[in-house]
C-alpha cells in the first residue's frame, strides 16, 4: 500500500479485497486425438494493489496459459472449463466479450517477452502507443499523442518527440522493450501482467526494466510477473507462486519461498539457479524434464523427478496444504519440516 492509493472511495481496494482473485482455474487444449491436455489444472492465487506477484516455473508449466486464460486471449483450441477470475469485483470469465474488451488494455495492461515480436513492425510507435487510448475513448487524438510522448519520456527514452514517429525496428532492443512497457502503462491500468519482460534483454537493460516496473508498483499498480528467473522474482516480487505441470505446487512470500522452500520442486529450482544458489553451492539441476501433459504422472506430477519421493504415498493426489496463513505447498511432507 502506498500513499498515492485511493483509500476513501467505496471502490477502493482493501487488503481483504484483492485486485485480482483467481480461484480453481482450469484450461484445457483440444487435441486431434485423445483426452484434452489440462494445461491449467486448478490454479488459484490473489494479488493486491501495489504488490508484485511472481509466477515461477519451467517452460510448459502453464504460467503463460494461466494469464492468457485470465485475459481470455487463448488460442481457439483452448477452453476454460472451470474457475473464476475476480477483478475489481467482476468475474472476468463470465463478462460479455464487449465488457472484456474494455478491461483489456485499459484496466489490465500486458507486457510481452519480446517487444520485437509484440509490436507491429509496420506501424509507428505513435500509432501503437495511442490506438488503445482511442479505442477505449480515454482521450482524443491530439491528447493521445501528447500522452504518448510523455509515456516515452517516462520510460527514459530520449528525444520522445522524434522517436514517436519511428518504427519498432528502428529502436535498440532495450528501448523497444521500454517502449512496450510505455504502451502498456499509458492507460494507467490497475494491473500489469508482465510475461518474462526481462528474458529477451541484456542484463543492463534488465535492471532498467525492473526499476521501471518498481516505479509503477509504488504508484499502486498490481504487477504479475511471469518468470522462470528466481533472481528476478527475489529482486522484484513480494509474493510468489510456483507452478508445475499446470498446478500450483507452492505459494509463499518470495523471501520465505527462497529462504525455506517447502516443496521439493521449489528446492530443485533453487538448486539449479545460478544467481540464487550462489558460488559456494554446487549447481544441482533437477534430473529429468518437465512431464508431457499427455502423460502426466499419477498423483504428484513431480514425483518421478523428486529425490525425496516415497513411492506409494506420492502416487496419491496431492492438494495444496496450508502451512501458515501466507504459505502453502503441495507436498504431503511440507508440514513436517515446519520448525
Amino acid at each position, binding site marked *: 500500500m502506498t500513499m498515492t492509493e485511493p483509500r476513501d472511495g467505496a471502490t477502493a481496494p482493501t487488503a481483504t479485497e484483492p485486485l485480482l482473485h483467481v480461484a480453481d482455474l482450469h484450461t484445457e487444449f483440444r487435441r486431434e486425438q485423445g483426452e484434452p491436455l489440462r494445461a491449467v489444472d486448478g490454479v488459484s492465487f490473489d494479488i493486491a494493489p501495489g504488490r508484485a506477484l511472481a509466477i515461477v516455473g519451467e517452460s510448459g508449466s502453464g504460467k503463460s496459459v494461466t494469464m492468457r486464460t485470465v485475459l481470455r486471449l487463448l488460442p481457439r483450441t483452448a477452453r476454460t472449463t472451470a474457475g473464476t477470475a475476480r477483478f475489481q469485483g467482476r468475474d472476468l470469465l463470465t463478462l460479455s466479450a464487449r465488457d472484456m474488451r474494455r478491461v483489456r488494455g485499459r484496466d489490465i495492461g500486458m507486457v510481452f517477452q519480446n517487444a520485437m515480436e509484440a509490436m507491429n*513492425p509496420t506501424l509507428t510507435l505513435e500509432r501503437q502507443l495511442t490506438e488503445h487510448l482511442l479505442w477505449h475513448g480515454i482521450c482524443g487524438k491530439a491528447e493521445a499523442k501528447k500522452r504518448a510522448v510523455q509515456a516515452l519520456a517516462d520510460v527514459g527514452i530520449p528525444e520522445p518527440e522524434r522517436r514517436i514517429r519511428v518504427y519498432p*525496428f528502428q529502436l535498440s532492443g532495450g528501448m523497444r522493450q521500454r517502449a512496450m512497457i510505455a504502451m502498456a502503462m499509458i492507460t494507467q491500468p490497475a494491473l500489469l501482467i508482465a510475461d518474462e519482460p526481462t528474458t529477451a534483454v541484456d542484463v543492463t537493460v534488465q535492471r532498467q526494466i525492473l526499476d521501471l516496473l518498481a516505479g509503477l508498483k509504488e504508484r499502486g499498480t498490481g504487477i504479475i510477473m511471469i518468470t522462470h528467473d528466481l533472481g528476478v522474482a527475489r529482486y522484484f516480487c513480494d509474493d510468489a507462486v510456483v507452478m508445475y505441470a499446470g498446478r500450483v505446487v507452492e505459494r509463499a512470500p518470495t523471501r520465505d519461498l527462497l529462504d525455506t522452500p517447502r516443496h521439493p520442486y521449489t528446492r530443485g529450482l533453487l538448486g539449479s539457479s545460478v544467481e540464487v544458489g550462489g558460488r559456494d553451492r554446487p549447481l544441482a539441476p533437477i534430473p529429468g524434464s518437465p512431464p508431457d501433459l499427455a502423460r502426466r504422472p499419477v498423483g504428484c506430477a513431480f514425483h518421478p523427478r523428486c529425490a525425496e519421493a516415497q513411492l506409494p504415498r506420492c502416487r496419491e493426489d496431492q492438494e495444496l496444504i496450508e502451512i501458515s496463513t501466507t504459505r502453502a505447498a503441495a507436498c504431503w511432507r511440507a508440514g513436517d519440516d515446519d520448525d
Partner: protein
Amino acid sequence: MGLLRYLGSRAGRLALSLIAVSIITFGLLQLAPGNFADIQRVTSGATSIAGTGTESMLAETQARYGEGTPVVEQYLTFMQGVVTWDMGPSYRYAGRAVEDIIESAFPVSATLAVLAVLLALLIAIPAGVYAALRQNSKSDHTTMFLVTLGHALPNYLIAAFLIIVFTAYLGWFPSSGWSTLDHVVLPVVALSLGPAAVLARYVRSSMLETLREEYVTAALAKGGPYRTVILRHALRNSLIPLVTVVGPLLAALMTGTVFVEALFRIPGLGYYAATAAASRDMPLLMGTVLFFALIIMVMNLLVDLTYGFLDPRIRAEGGWGRSRPRKVSTQPA
C-alpha cells in the same frame, strides 16, 4: 540510397536487360525455320508468292533493311527503329506499322488485365481472409474448394462455358468484339478466376501466418476490437507479400492472353503476338517481344517500389525492396 538514385540505377539495368533480350530474340528468330513468304504460300495453297499481295511488302522491307545485308546490320537497323519508335510495317497486317499495332492493342490488353486482376483481388482477399479466420472448419474447406475449382479449369474453358451460358443461353452479354462495356464482362471474368484462386490461397496462408504473430495477440490485449485488429494489424501486414505475386500476374495478363482474346475476338496484344509468331512476321514479333520484356521489367520495378512503400523496414534499408525474396509468377499461359 535515395529514391532518385535507386530509380536511376534500376533504369540503367533495365536498359541493359532489354538489349540482351533483343539480341537473344533476334538471334533465335534468324535460326527459326521458314519465312513469311513461305508460310503465306503454304497456307494459301499457292505455288508462288505472285498474287498473294506479299511481293510489294517484301520489296518494302528489303528496301528498309537492304537485301542481303549482314545480320548485325539488320539488327542495328531494327534497334534504331525501336529507339525512334518507327519499326516499319508488319508483314501480316499489310499497311499497318508495328508501333501502330502495339499502340492500339496494348490499351485493350492493359484494360483487360487491370480489370481481371482487380476482380481477382476482390474475390481472393475476402475468400482468403474468411478461410483463414475459420481455419480447418467446413467453411474453410468449402471456400478453398470452390476457389481451387477456378484454378483447375483453364481460362479458355471457362470462357467457352461463359459464352454458352451468358451469350447463347441467357443472351445477357455479347460473345465477341470490343466496343461497349458489355464486351468487357465475360473476358474479365474468364481471366480472373484462375488468378483469384492463386491469390486466395496466398492470402489465406499469409493471413494464417500473420494471425499467429504475437503483435496480433498484443493488439487484442490492448483491447482492440476484433475486426479492427484483423483489418489494421493482421490483414495489412499479410497483404504486403501479395504485391510480389500481383505484379508479375498483372504483367503476364497485360502481355496478352492468346486464347481468351481469340475466343472473344478481342484485338489485344496476345492475339497479334500469336499470329505474328505463326506467320513469321518478324518486325511485329520482334516489336511485341521487346515490348513484353519492357512491361515485365517495369512491373517488377513497380513491385519493388510498392514493397518499399508498404514496408518501412525495407524502405529504411534504402534498397526499396531489393533484398526481399522474389516470388516466381505462377500464372498459367
